[in-house]
């Protein structure tokens, strides 16, 4: 600022608080962590999506301690089962979070789960391939399907809802075609119409087991790994920042040199990849590849993301929120089933709770 020539009249900044002007004349950004602002900061934090998602989870946990079904809610086995049962949905929600942050949606994940489950089962049970080949192949199928949906969205500009709806129907059909519309199980048909049984592949059993003395399901470990990857992408990787930018303002992102097409295709591809992981887990747990698996699970995954507080408009949200949403849904389901609430009531209550959670998440200006 010392280069001012005599002719110039460097203006004092108008409108700004003069106390924050440093001697050099440059206005320094105020430090938000100064004393006396802690209460304000806390109040501000209470309004953030994270705080609200935590509040929703806390509320569900409080309900759990009240309606604890004679103490069974407090058993460690219950916690393990809750996490295990919600893990597949949680894995789907990891990919869904990436897609929703770009302002899109992926309705095809339930069908991709079934498609990959069927292919995974055929390759490992019928063809007897090694897990080292089967798993990469299965993941590749999911990623390819996701990349295709992403291409429809990013290249051809088809609305994400429509493109992935088409993929949802197509992938379901493909799963039924490949499996002959039957569960791919260890029961193998003989030429004379009878069945013989082959042993369950080792990979199925390892995925369907648990670690830490039986207190943590392997699928939950896989979920944690997936969530960690998605979290790293969103908060530490350039690509994650691009996803937020695209969801926040696609045109501004493009003009800033963000590779919009590539980043978007990547998001759908990741969603397909995570759906493939969920498909593998699902098939291993069921010990069969069911072409009708995962019907409606895309909606559960979306509900998890939205309850967490990630905006369906794109540009806001995060993986931590999705995990909170997942725990909220998982524990809610568990509490309802522990208390033997009939299925009809469970569905209705789930609907009510989703609306309540989203209302609580709504941004207030």
């Amino acid at each position, binding site marked *: 600022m010392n280069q001012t020539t005599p002719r110039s009249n460097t203006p004092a900044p108008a409108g700004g608080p003069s106390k924050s002007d440093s001697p050099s004349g440059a206005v320094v950004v105020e430090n938000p962590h100064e004393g006396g602002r802690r209460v304000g900061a806390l109040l501000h934090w209470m309004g953030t999506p994270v705080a609200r998602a935590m509040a929703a989870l806390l509320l569900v946990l409080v309900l759990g301690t009240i309606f604890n079904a004679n103490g069974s809610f407090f058993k460690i086995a219950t916690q393990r089962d809750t996490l295990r049962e919600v893990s597949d949905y949680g894995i789907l929600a990891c990919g869904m979070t990436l897609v929703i942050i770009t302002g899109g949606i992926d309705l095809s994940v339930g069908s991709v789960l079934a498609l990959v489950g069927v292919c995974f089962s055929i390759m490992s049970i019928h063809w007897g391939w090694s897990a080292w080949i089967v798993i990469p192949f299965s993941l590749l199928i999911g990623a390819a399907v996701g990349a295709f949906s992403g291409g429809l969205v990013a290249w051809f500009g088809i609305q994400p809802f429509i493109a992935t709806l088409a993929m949802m129907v197509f992938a379901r059909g493909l799963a039924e075609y490949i499996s002959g519309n039957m569960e791919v199980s260890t029961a193998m048909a003989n030429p004379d119409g009878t069945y013989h049984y082959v042993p369950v592949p080792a990979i199925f059993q390892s995925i369907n087991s648990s670690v830490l003395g039986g207190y943590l399901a392997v699928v939950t470990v896989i979920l944690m790994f997936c969530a960690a990857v998605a979290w790293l992408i969103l908060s530490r990787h350039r690509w994650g*920042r691009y996803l937020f930018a695209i969801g*926040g303002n696609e045109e*501004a992102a493009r003009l800033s040199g963000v590779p919009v097409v590539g980043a978007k295709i990547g998001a759908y591809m990741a969603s397909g990849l995570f759906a493939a992981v969920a498909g593998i887990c699902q098939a291993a747990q069921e010990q069969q590849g069911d072409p009708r698996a995962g019907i409606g699970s895309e909606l559960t995954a979306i509900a998890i993301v939205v309850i967490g507080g990630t905006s369906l408009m794109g540009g806001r949200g995060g993986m931590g929120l999705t995990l909170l949403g997942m725990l909220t849904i998982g524990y809610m389901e568990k509490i309802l089933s522990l208390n033997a609430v009939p299925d009809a009531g469970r569905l209705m209550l789930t609907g009510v709770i989703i609306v309540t959670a989203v209302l609580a998440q709504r941004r207030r200006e």
Partner: protein
Amino acid sequence: MDRPHDPLLRLVGVGKKFGTVEVLRNVDLSIYPGEVHILAGENGAGKSTLVKIMAGVYSDYTGTMEVAGRQVRLSSPPEATAMGISVIYQELSLVSTMTVSDNIFLGLFLHRAGFVRNKAQCDATKRLLAKLGVQALPEQRVGDLPIATRHLIEIAKAMSRNAKVIIMDEPTSALNVQESEKLFALIRSLKSNGCGIIYISHKMEEIEQLADRITVLRDGMLIGSVSAAELPTPKLIHWMVGRPMEQQFSRRAPPTGKEVLRIERFCVAGPLRRHKPLVQEVALSIRQGEILGIAGLEGAGNSHLLSGLFGVYGRRATGRVWIEGKPVRIDRPVHAMQQGMALLTNDRKATGLILPMSIIANITLAKLRDFSTAGWRRTARETRAAHEIARALRVRANSLRMEVGKLSGGNQQKVALAKWMLLNPQLLLLDEPTRGVDVGAKREVYELMNQWTARGIAIILITSEMSELLAMSDRILVMHRGRITAEFSGSRATPQAIVNAAMAPPVEKEIPS
């Protein structure tokens, strides 16, 4: 001053707090029939809050409000409309997929037993538009009309609801000179019909042209409310910013260096083949340290020229481009950025910033590749660089982690500039760099432009404010229908000559194809 009428609207001692922050304190305001009342003040002075109180958006204010001598407390916008107060916001409230007449009668449909009387609505709309001199058909979809006409229709809608007080918040920010003239003509006819108009604008020329009375707010307080004759522009600016302003801005042109950019036969085709080209056969060159102003009415193609240069239109842009004497091909914004170009777009909310992201994320977005190794972001480096550039551009914010959407217009603009300056561009394309920016921040932007050109950066400037164009440009090109029609050196340009060139047909006759 003796007045023949009672005020249409009177505010006495109005105050408003958001939480503990007092944004308005003890403001008085009276609107009389047949006057244009300018509400002036920098961004954040409390103008918008005051408008929202009058519009019934906020009802929890202190003080009183009288409409036609009767004390009222409006609790919703429809109530305000019913009392004859209409607000024309910057973002229009028309449904672009519906027809003009449907929009005008929206919510108050003429109907018989619940069935809309389309014919009656169209006839009434036709009469109304004719009375106001608006060129549009009742059956046209609003989305198909130019922005200016939409503004006029918004006003027609207000008139159809018997508005006595019409509040306009920067109505010309998206209009060109001709369109603004149409709006001003309409405002004059509203005046003669006995309407009171509250007009908010940052453009001094408009204020000079329209004002009957001016009320100035600063930091939520009433500075004064006087007739326009008593408040010439320098004094008005003094009132707004709280100190005298000797000169609005001054350009310090450095000696120019070598040529940065030269283009020849540069064309931008329309989106479809049957459309007219947006830019035709443009040739220009610019040197280091130079500010080249490009004037033109809305649709003259100057914005398209900058976007085309920056690779926004891909292969629709054709022609020869040299950067520092080397021929280059620019098909995508990334290519342009690699060549040392930066484009500040004319609408920071729509195309400039990612509003839900933090200031840091916005500033570093275009340079993220340099702040990451193998894709992983180096957050510490990113934060440090963002702080440095934010300080250099005097971005005012509590924290750089704040959402950009929560900043004032001037600070948002500085963030958008910071994003581009981080790239160390050698050629800055600035499209309306001071749109929607208050007077103080405007001066800062001009000062920055002086500093940057002193460092050898070349700037192409587009602005719809004549005074800004004349003051800051070293050389001025004028465009009309996609072609350059005149060139002036900065000292020789006069507003009249520029407007003439902007409205005159091109030298060569267009041959219809």
